[in-house]
C-alpha cells in the first residue's frame, strides 16, 4: 500500500511539474516571440547580483521574485474574503485538470505496470469540462469583490464569454467521444496508436478536423487572451477583472492564464495529435512499416513518450502565443457572433455527421 500511495503521489507531482515547466517555457516564448514579431530584442535588462549574462533567463527568475516581493494591496471598499478567494478559484481548477491528462503509456518498474496518468478517471473528458466551467468563478468573483466598475465590467464580460464558448467546446468534444467510444483520455491516446493502411498513425485530427478547429478556438477563448481578451482589454478597462490585484495575487491570475494555454495545448495534443504517441513506437520498441523492428526497454519507451508529449504541447503553446501576438482584439458583438453563430452550428453539424458516420461504419472508429 505505501508503494501505491508513493507512486500515485509521484505521478500527480510529475504531471504538475511538467505543466508548470512548460508554462515557464511559455512565458519565455511570450517574451521572445513577441519581440521577434515586433522586431525588437526583448527583455534583456535584468541583472541578478550584477550578473546579466544570461539575459532573458535572468528575467524569467527576476519576474516572479518581483511579483512575490511587491506590496499586496486589498482595496478598502472591497469584499476582503472574496477578493482573497478569487485568484485561488482561478488557478486551482486549471491546475487540477492536469490530473487526468496522460503523459505516457505504461512504465514497467519492479514488476508493476504503472499507468502514466495522474488520476485514472473513467469520465476524464467530463472532468476537464467540469474544471473548465469552475474556472469562471475566479473571474466573476474577482470582478465583483474588487468593488470597481472596470473590474465588474470585466467580470461580467468574462463570465458571458466563458459560458458561451464552453458550449461549443463541449459539443466539439462529443465528436471526439463518438470517434473513440470512451471518455477516458488515456484510452483516447492509446486508440491513436493504430496505423491506417499500415503506415499512417491514426491521430484524431484525421477523424475530427472540424472538432480540432472548434476546440482550439474555444480553448483560446477560455484562456481569455488576445484575440479574446475582452474581460481584460487594457485599453478600455485598465486590467479588467484583475485591475485591483497586485503582487502575488496578480501573479496568480497571470499564471492561471498561462496554465490554461498549456492546458489547451495538452488537450489538443491528447485528443487530436496522438498524445504521447511516437509514430511506430509500441510498448516493446519501434515497429517500422517497412519491417524493421527495434526492441527498447520500457524505461526508454516511456522517456521517449513523455518527451514526445512535452514537445507536442510546447509546439501548441508556441502556436497560441503566435496567434496572440498576431491578431487584434475582437469587438464584443463579433465575439458573441463567432461563438453562437459560428462555432456552435459548426460543432452541432460535426456531431450529426460524426454520429451518422459512426452509425454507418457500425462501430466507433
Amino acid at each position, binding site marked *: 500500500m505505501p508503494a501505491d500511495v508513493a507512486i500515485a503521489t509521484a505521478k500527480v507531482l510529475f504531471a504538475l511539474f511538467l505543466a508548470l515547466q512548460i508554462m515557464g517555457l511559455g512565458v519565455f516564448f511570450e517574451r521572445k516571440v513577441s519581440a521577434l514579431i515586433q522586431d525588437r530584442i526583448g527583455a534583456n535588462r535584468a541583472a541578478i547580483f550584477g550578473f546579466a549574462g544570461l539575459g532573458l533567463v535572468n528575467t524569467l527568475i527576476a519576474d516572479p521574485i518581483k511579483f512575490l516581493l511587491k506590496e499586496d494591496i486589498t482595496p478598502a471598499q472591497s469584499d476582503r474574503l*472574496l477578493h482573497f478567494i478569487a485568484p485561488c478559484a482561478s488557478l486551482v481548477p486549471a491546475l487540477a485538470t492536469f490530473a487526468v491528462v496522460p503523459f505516457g503509456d505504461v512504465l514497467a518498474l519492479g514488476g508493476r505496470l504503472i499507468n502514466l496518468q495522474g488520476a485514472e478517471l*473513467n*469520465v476524464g473528458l467530463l472532468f476537464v469540462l467540469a474544471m473548465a*466551467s469552475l474556472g469562471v468563478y475566479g473571474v466573476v468573483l474577482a470582478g*465583483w469583490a474588487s468593488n470597481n466598475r472596470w473590474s*465588474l465590467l470585466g467580470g*461580467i464580460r468574462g463570465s458571458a464569454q466563458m459560458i458561451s464558448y464552453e458550449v461549443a467546446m463541449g459539443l466539439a468534444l462529443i465528436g471526439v467521444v463518438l470517434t473513440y467510444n470512451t471518455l477516458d483520455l488515456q484510452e483516447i491516446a492509446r486508440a491513436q496508436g493504430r496505423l491506417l493502411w499500415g503506415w499512417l498513425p491514426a491521430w484524431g485530427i484525421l477523424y475530427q478536423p472540424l472538432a480540432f478547429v472548434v476546440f482550439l478556438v474555444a480553448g483560446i477563448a477560455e484562456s481569455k487572451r488576445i484575440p479574446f481578451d475582452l474581460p481584460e482589454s487594457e485599453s478600455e478597462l485598465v486590467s479588467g477583472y484583475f485591475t485591483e490585484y497586485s503582487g502575488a495575487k496578480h501573479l496568480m491570475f497571470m499564471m492561471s492564464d498561462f496554465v490554461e494555454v498549456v492546458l489547451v495545448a495538452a488537450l489538443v495534443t491528447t485528443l487530436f495529435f496522438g498524445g504521447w504517441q511516437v509514430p511506430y513506437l509500441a510498448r516493446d520498441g519501434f515497429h517500422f512499416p517497412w519491417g524493421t523492428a527495434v526492441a527498447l526497454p520500457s524505461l526508454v519507451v516511456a522517456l521517449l513518450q513523455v518527451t514526445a508529449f512535452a514537445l507536442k504541447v510546447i509546439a501548441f503553446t508556441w502556436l497560441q502565443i503566435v496567434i496572440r501576438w498576431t491578431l487584434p482584439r475582437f469587438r464584443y458583438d463579433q465575439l458573441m457572433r463567432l461563438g453562437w453563430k459560428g462555432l456552435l452550428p459548426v460543432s452541432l453539424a460535426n456531431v450529426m455527421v460524426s454520429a451518422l458516420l459512426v452509425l454507418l461504419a457500425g462501430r466507433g472508429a
Partner: protein
Amino acid sequence: MTAPVFLLLAVLVVAAALTVVAHPSPVYSACALVVTLFLLSVFFVALDAQLVAVLQVIVYAGAIVVLFLFVIMLLNLTQPESRPTAGVPVVAVAVGGGIGIAALVAAALRRVPPAGAPALPEGFGDTAALARRLFTAYVLPFELTSVLLLVAIVGAVGLASRKG
C-alpha cells in the same frame, strides 16, 4: 468512505447549505450554493457514481449558479435595505414542514436493511451502463424532459422579445 471523512463532509455541506439561506448577501449565498453542490458531488464519487458527480459539477455548479451570479452582478443586487421579517404563521409552517420531512426520512430509513450493503453489479455508475438504461428503459421520460426544456427555452425567448 470512512466514517470520519463522511462526518466532516456532512458537517461542511450542511454548514454551506445553511449559509445559502441565512447569509444576507446574495453573492455569498450563490457562492455557498456552489460549495454545497461541489461537496454533494464528492458524496456521489464516494457512492461510485462518478458520472453523476461530474454532471452535478458541470450542470449545477458550473453553469446554473454562474448564471445566478451573472444576474446578481448585472442587476447589482447588494444587501436589501430591510430584510423581510417572517410572521408567526410562516415560521410555524416552516418548522412543521421540517419536522414532517424529518419524520418521513426516519420512516424511510427504518425500511433500509441494516449494514452489509450488497455488492455493486459490474459497471455500476459508469457512463455506458447509465446511458443504456437512459436510452432503453427510460427513453420516453428522457425525451419528454428534453421537449419540456425546449418549450421552456422557446417560452423564455418569446417573453423576452415581447418586452423589447
